[in-house]
């Protein structure tokens, strides 16, 4: 009874300190929501409005038809026509255009003569991702253009031996928004939880109130419970709001079970609370706590598979990444949203999370008292 009263007092105090302070009250809901919507709109791999310039030496009906096709695809935005070779380089250098298309003077003549024609495309490789996708688009447009020439009888197409029939599962139109937004909630709620918990012990150490807790009849486990609960509650609340936002605002399909979602998020947030409290119990000041949490978050997000596939990383890094809690929730969230996973299906991804938490949480409880000063 006494123990419960004691823990309850601590939990109430932790919630009151978060909610009473207008700054931390805002931090747990305002900026995360804004981030969620801004990132949801902004972070996409779908390439649109690629600026391009044309150096058309042919100036013929067919070359204008090709440019018309490019223009009509909706993916490209013409910035201007060039008059000589020198302008091509300048155009890329100054980032006026990401692509320059060079059509030679013989273009139409050679086509009518059914001879192969080259079109030169210079892409800005400073952003390889955009260049690659834009070149892909351009390839499709040229292919369509070829088959039209074939239909008009201008050029005879040799019949291809193999034909690809494409079909994407889970994300039929390959919308990158589904890919991003389904996992975004996990990342943003992690930031909230990290900031809340990494400051909680450090703040008390800085103001000297932590000593008061240590001389009081609390066991480290009781302090741990008191310090964890606000992070878990606010983090889970944020993450669930983001999940709802993904479904109802961004129209990402939700094919899995709600139970799987809640359990997965809970496991993840408990793990992050463990990491945050460990950082916090190692810090003597709030500044150290914040620095420490950013030291964790940057690599954890970058190596999580949120933006770039884990499979792309060198093997040793992939193995080291096994201790990164963020990778598991990213996989779990995507399979719940898009794949329709239930609890049994995501469980293999949650087990490592609980394993990490079972190390960080007791370790931070031990640190409360043994961090010598």
């Amino acid at each position: 009874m006494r123990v419960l009263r004691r823990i309850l007092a601590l939990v109430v105090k932790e919630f009151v300190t978060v909610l009473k302070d207008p700054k931390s009250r805002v931090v747990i809901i305002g900026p995360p929501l804004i981030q969620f919507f801004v990132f949801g709109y902004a972070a996409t791999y779908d390439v649109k409005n690629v600026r391009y310039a044309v150096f058309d030496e042919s100036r013929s009906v067919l070359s204008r038809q090709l440019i018309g096709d490019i223009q009509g695809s909706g993916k490209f935005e013409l910035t201007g026509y060039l008059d000589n070779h020198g302008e091509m380089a300048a155009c890329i250098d100054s980032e006026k255009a990401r692509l320059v298309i060079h059509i030679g003077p013989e273009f139409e003549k050679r086509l009518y003569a059914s001879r192969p024609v080259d079109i030169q495309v210079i892409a800005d490789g400073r952003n390889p991702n955009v260049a690659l996708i834009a070149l892909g688009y351009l390839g499709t447009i040229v292919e369509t253009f070829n088959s039209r020439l074939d239909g008009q009888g201008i050029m005879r197409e040799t019949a291809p031996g193999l034909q690809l029939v494409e079909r994407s599962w889970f994300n039929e139109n390959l919308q990158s928004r589904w890919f991003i937004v389904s996992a975004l909630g996990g990342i943003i709620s992690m930031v909230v939880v990290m900031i809340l918990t990494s400051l909680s012990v450090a703040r008390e150490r800085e103001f000297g109130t932590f000593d008061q807790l240590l001389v009081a009849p609390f066991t480290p486990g009781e302090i741990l419970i008191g310090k964890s609960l606000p992070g878990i509650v606010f983090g889970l609340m944020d993450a669930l709001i983001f999940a709802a936002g993904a479904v109802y605002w961004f129209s990402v399909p939700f094919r899995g079970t709600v139970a799987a979602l809640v359990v997965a998020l809970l496991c993840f947030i408990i793990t992050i609370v463990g990491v945050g409290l460990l950082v916090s119990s190692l810090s003597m000041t709030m500044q150290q706590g914040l620095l420490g949490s950013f030291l964790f978050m940057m690599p954890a997000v970058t190596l999580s598979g949120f933006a770039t596939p884990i499979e792309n990383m060198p093997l040793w890094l992939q193995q080291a990444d096994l201790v990164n809690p963020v990778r598991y929730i990213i996989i779990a969230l995507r399979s719940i949203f898009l794949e329709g996973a239930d609890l049994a299906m995501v469980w293999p991804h949650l087990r490592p999370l609980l394993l990490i938490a079972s190390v960080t949480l007791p370790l931070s409880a031990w640190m409360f008292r043994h961090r010598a000063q």
Partner: protein
Amino acid sequence: MRRIGKNHASDEPVILCAEEVSREFDDHGIRVAALNRVSFTVARAGVTGLVGADGAGKTTFIRIAAGLLVPTSGKMSLLGLDSAAGSLEIQSRVGYMPQKFGLYQDLTVRENMNLYADLQGVPMAQRSRRYEQLLTMTDLAAYTKRRAGALSGGMKQKLGLACALIKSPELLLLDEPTVGVDPVSRRELWKIVYKLVEEDGIGVLVSTAYLDEAERCSHVVVLHQGRLLAEGVPEDFSSKMKNRVSLVTAEKSGQLRRIYTRVAGEEGIVDATIRSGRVRVVREQESAGRLKQLLNGAKVKIETAEPGFEDAFMALIPRERDHLKAAGEAGGGSFSRKAEGDDVVVVHTRDLSRRFGDFEAVKKLNFSVKRGEIFGLLGPNGAGKSTTFRMLCGLLPASSGDIQVAGVNLLKSRAKARARLGYMAQQFSLYGQLSVKENLSFFGRVYGLDNKNLKKRIDWAYSEFGLGRLRNKAAVDLPGGYKQRLAMAAALLHEPDILFLDEPTSGVDPFARREFWLRINGFAEQGVTVVVTTHFMEEAEYCDRMLIMSQGETLAVGTPEEIRNLAVSAENQHPTMDDAFIALAEGNVRNASDQADSTGRQDRDSGGEP
């Protein structure tokens, strides 16, 4: 006591002149007057003391003089220049040392001096001579290559003073230069100030909350809540108090504290303190009738004493009487009175040591505290008091040696053992955003009080500490003295058997300090064991026994009387605690270590090994 001739302010040319200076601040939309039409002058070649409690307006006045603040109304001129308009020229001719002087902790002593010389534009040619003068004066010549951060508190203050003096100012402004500085360093700082006045003829304006320092000034200005209450030569103040000060000696030893608590805070009594084993009482009237009435029945000897500035100051400042009550008087004192004369050892250490890397903060400390005792850990900053204290409370592991508090080592013990402990940290360490009420109920619940008991104890705290009307105010917004009361209330809410207090009176004005000790005495009377650290030597008088530390080592252990007796010499028959400390620190006590050892050993024997 040294004094500078008979210089009255009017004999010497005026160097600073304040006319009806007022300054208001905005506190959450309410205009608060920090200074209210204050007028006085500071003379060249003299020390003018600005004396007052916390919130008197001392710092505000000095900041205006230094050109850092502009008065809301009124006019202040220094060296014939207006403080607001001529601030640039004033700053180049006036030395200013704020409460926390901006020393760069990672620069050496010499580098700090170079920096300030650069900032003040002291020509290179003059520097080496000036440095030499300042370093000799401050005794820092041997430490020029040491980092400022590694200096002791007193040395830091002296370095700050040296930096403020780097351009040979005509007027020196010192804002509480001796706060948190040990007696030896305080004495040295004052010597430097006098030297400056006598040799260079500069004027000094110094603010202080130490009343004994006021007596060393040639002219004293008393501020209270922004108003000037009185000014004059210190003797003028004390002469008014003639025949109003008594010394009460208890015929039976051990009665002292009871006499003190009986007298203090009563009507007709302005001030009561324990000094050199006697209770010093300042009366409102010359007749001693009221005092005799209060002490009716007690076996005491009452003598008349020579009044000092402090007595006059205490009589001058208007106060609410209910602040000065011994613990337990104001309703529901619920500590159970323990059997008297029991010799149960509550706190015990053997060869307690703590190292931080190469640095030995505490070296082989031996002492024990009996139930119901007030035990003081005394010593200057950096002596190892706080380290010892943190080890006792289980906040820091010991490097070697044993600690037992209530029979257990708190670092290793189960949480339950800590429930009988009250703890008050050095800095204010309650939850700032939480209200008084929320803080109290948090700490009550933490120590397992149920709703009924909690309400009873919170009501007790409201009446005992006068916190009732502030119950809904956030702790961070409380005035300084009330913060300390709240911290104490929180520590006492669960009626602990042992109370640990770390520097409870540091940075607290004389009134709050008196109030505090009166309360502690009351609690001890009721059987609470108190372990307290302080760097105010005179506060040792309130302790039953104490341990004086310096640089991690034990200088002496014993009762206040035993410690004072160590310093008795032909010239000084009635040494104060300050004298005793200085004698101990300078090694001028014959057999001091032997005596300390023997008392320490005695402790162990009588305490009985658990």
